[in-house]
């Protein structure tokens, strides 16, 4: 993760080397272990693949999925069905088909649930698990009536070789997840887990991100189920009970399986805890009690075994990375503002009885920076929310470059070239600076281009993990990402919040150069008048949801009404 910005050789070669090593270890285990432990190891591998899937959906994408083994049942169904039908290709092909089928079922199930946030996915998946539980008991997996056991591939037919096949499949799945995490999908999973609004504002579809996460997770579940069928020979409903799905979810939470090594570790726990209980003569039911207690503990403390182990591993925790804006930027001629690129007219919205905005008109000139100021509660952030599409109930017209944006989703608006940043931190801590910037920019970027832009805003280098970046710097990384997307207009909602006051003007100098340097017009919402003065050609003042004044900077700031509105907020003048 931390080497995301290193050369392609290490980026792709490294994991491959590790994978080859893992397969070699798998082979030596398959040869060296006692027969019974080889069989237990197979169970661990099956659990590991299922956990890897859960890691994608619960860990990366932050959703609660309680039917992982139902997807495994789909995989098992397909594998035993193809086996019974004598389909060509053999076990490995069937296994892949099982994974694909489970992924498709995942999409079908996820489609209704993923539109919405919060807890609904948990309700849906638990409902599915319970229904599948009852159904599977009543109907039969193909081949069970006649006792046709699933044929393992010839080269892997005995337990030891099958275990080795299992390690190969597990390693391939790990690699798959590892590389998927680096794609746009993977960044989208991280982003959506942290903030759905942030994801949409980056032009990524929240639904696609969730759906891909859910589908990948389900597909891995399907592979696990298929592998289990090959292990036992026949598929049985008891392998896919909802209790086991719940336990797997709790295990995923407590071991932190969004980290690949922790998925493997969780799988080891999955077989080791019952095995140890057996050796100590403790009834097996205590296993789930232990999982339940540890899961509760992990959730309430917000930690998990994975992070705990990591903390011990890397004692040398470094301090947070911040912003370096001391040196003034190189001079650049500021372009004269042109025709309006973003025009907003007649914008109104009310929340219940309260009129938050009424009849607001605003125009952002091309190559210009428009400042929007106003006292607290004047409706500044609401204005940004409306323009960027997060308040579809608002009335009025928003036009970008002559095209109406009305009725378009935030994602569509972002893709059309209207970007925004947020006042609160909406930067997912799981990514590196570089991968986040790439995710937000949505276009091919050279490493130099990123480094240059980051340096311009004094941000930490691209390979820094965001969790080690302080809040002020995260906001600027967000700004850099959106600027590199080359939108037509960028709405900045108090970008300086979180920076020490003395750096505000330094930031202002840079923002002033944004139109010329990046070709992006800016609408800047700011509290700090010093910053606004140093950046904005034109200013609009909002007060109680209405435009109080609008025009060139000097004119507006001299307006007596504006002064009156700001009376009492002395720190602003």
């Amino acid at each position, binding site marked *: 993760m931390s080497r995301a910005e290193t050369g392609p050789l290490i980026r792709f070669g490294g994991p491959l080397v590790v994978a080859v090593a893992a397969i070699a270890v798998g082979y030596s285990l398959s040869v060296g272990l*006692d027969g019974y432990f080889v069989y237990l190891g197979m169970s661990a591998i099956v659990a590991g693949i299922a956990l890897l899937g859960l890691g994608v959906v619960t860990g990366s994408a932050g959703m609660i999925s309680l039917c992982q083994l139902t997807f495994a049942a789909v995989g098992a169904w397909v594998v035993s069905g193809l086996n019974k039908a004598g389909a060509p290709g053999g076990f490995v092909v069937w296994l892949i088909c099982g994974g694909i089928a489970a992924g498709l079922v995942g999409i079908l199930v996820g489609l209704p649930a993923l539109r919405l946030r919060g807890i609904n996915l948990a309700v849906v998946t638990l409902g599915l698990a319970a229904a599948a539980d009852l159904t599977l008991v009543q109907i039969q997996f193909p081949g069970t009536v006649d006792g046709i056991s699933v044929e393992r591939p010839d080269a892997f037919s005995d337990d030891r070789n099958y275990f080795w096949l299992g390690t190969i499949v597990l390693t391939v799945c790990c690699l798959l997840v*590892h590389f998927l995490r680096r794609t746009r999908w993977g960044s989208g999973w991280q982003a959506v887990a942290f903030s759905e609004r942030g994801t949409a504002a980056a032009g990524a579809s929240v639904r696609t991100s969730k759906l891909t996460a859910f589908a990948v997770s389900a597909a891995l579940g399907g592979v696990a189920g298929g592998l289990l069928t090959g292990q036992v020979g*026949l598929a049985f*409903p008891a392998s896919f009970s909802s209790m086991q799905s719940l336990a797997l979810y709790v295990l995923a939470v407590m071991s932190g399986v969004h980290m690949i090594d922790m998925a493997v570790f969780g799988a080891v726990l999955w077989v080791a805890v019952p095995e140890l209980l057996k050796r100590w003569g403790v009834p097996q039911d205590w296993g789930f009690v232990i999982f339940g207690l540890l899961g509760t503990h992990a959730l309430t403390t917000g930690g998990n075994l994975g992070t705990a182990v990591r903390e011990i591993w890397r004692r040398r925790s470094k301090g947070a990375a911040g912003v370096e804006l001391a040196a003034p930027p190189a001079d650049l001629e500021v372009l004269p503002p042109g025709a309006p690129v973003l025009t907003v007219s007649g914008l109104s919205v009310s929340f219940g009885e309260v009129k938050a905005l009424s009849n607001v008109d605003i125009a952002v000139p091309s190559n210009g920076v428009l400042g929007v100021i106003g006292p607290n509660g004047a409706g500044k952030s609401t204005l940004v929310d409306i323009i960027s599409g997060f308040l579809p109930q608002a009335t009025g017209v928003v036009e970008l470059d002559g095209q109406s944006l009305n009725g378009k989703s935030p994602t569509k608006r972002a893709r059309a070239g209207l970007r925004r940043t947020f006042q609160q931190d909406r930067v997912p801590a799981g990514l590196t600076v570089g991968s986040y910037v790439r995710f937000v920019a949505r276009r091919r970027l050279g490493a130099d281009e990123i480094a240059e832009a980051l340096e311009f805003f004094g941000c930490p280098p691209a390979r820094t993990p965001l969790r080690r970046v302080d809040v002020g710097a995260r906001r600027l990384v967000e700004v850099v990402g959106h600027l590199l997307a080359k939108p037509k207009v960028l709405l900045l909602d108090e970008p300086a919040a979180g920076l020490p006051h003395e750096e505000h003007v330094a930031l202002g100098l840079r923002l002033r150069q944004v139109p010329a340097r990046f070709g992006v017009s800016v609408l800047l919402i700011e509290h700090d008048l010093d910053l606004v003065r140093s950046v904005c050609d034109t200013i609009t003042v909002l007060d109680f949801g209405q435009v109080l004044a609008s025009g060139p900077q000097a004119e507006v700031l001299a307006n007596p009404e504006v002064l009156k509105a700001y009376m009492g907020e002395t720190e602003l003048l």
Partner: protein
Amino acid sequence: MRKIMRCVAVAAAVTLVAAGCANGSDSSSGGGSGPIVVGSVNALSGAATFPEASAAAKAVFDAANASGGVNGRQIQYKALDDKGDPAAAAAAAREVVGADNAVALVGSSSLIECEINSKYYEQQKILSIQGVGVDPSCFNSPNISPANVGPFHDMTLTLLYGSEVLKLDKICALLEIAGNTLPSYQAAIDEWSKITGKKLAYMDATVPYGGSDYTSYIVKARSAGCKAITVNPVEPDSIGQLKAATAQGWNDVTWLLLTSVYSENYAKAISNAGAGVYVPAEFYPFTDAASAQTKEWRDLMTKNNIPLTSFSQGGYLAAKYFLQVIKGIKGDINRESVTKALHDMQPISDPMVGTSYTFGTGQTHHDNTAGWPIKLMSGTNKWELAATDWLRIPKN
């Protein structure tokens, strides 16, 4: 990338630990003068458990060990848990057969074990005297021969009792089908039809296993005009069904059930049994406390604090049969000689069963065809004998 490195480290650590464990458990294998290892695979934890069969078998072996063992060798009995989980059942078989090198499996009782492990037992050339066999594979595999009658013959018996002894007509079947059992139950019902020439008034094979509310199935059966209902339930489901009938005020229905509900617990839970619950007990009814047939078993179970149930009867009998057979072995007692002895054994009769037991070399083992009818009437909370002799399925 570093994380995958750590994966490898974890895997390596696991290898070491596992290898250590492996070495630890190797010691008990091998023949000669060491203990005779006997195993069993049981449902000991999870949603449905049958711990008594293996506990009873263990009691029998402990008693044998206390009186000197078999030909001077002690029996080491390993009862493993399958947790109701197929992978665990398969792993347990591999542990006891592969790693511990057991000579045979005795007294197992599990819902799934036969089906999952029968092939493996064939490969390993090991035989299993199941204490209580449930799924069809327990009765149609060459290497498994249960000590009990089994639910399928039991279903034929309960129907025979209902139609021939109680002279009931309009018998209906509510079948709880789990997995691949439907054809076997259908065969059992067909056998009854073949013997008596009678047909079921109505059959519903969609009754859920482990459902929460059975009212709608009861209502459906009642409106079909059923006078008697045969079910293949697990205890909680049967209790739910009887309660649903009670709540509907259906008090004149006769229940023709299977040994699966024959327990003291069940009797206590049932206050309204309609026109009576009738069961052909697979072993001589243990609730007949004064009976000479069960005395030996009863004494041993009471001494070892094992619940008196049909399961402990099955486990006890399996162990008895096994002991008797291996005591006759001349020479070394190992898997090979035990298998041969079981294949060649003479039938053993026991007062607790109506059919004598033999393993033999047959491809199927479904020859135990006698049950002792018992009944549970409303308000008694007690099982009572309903006959003075075994009820047998007539041989064609």
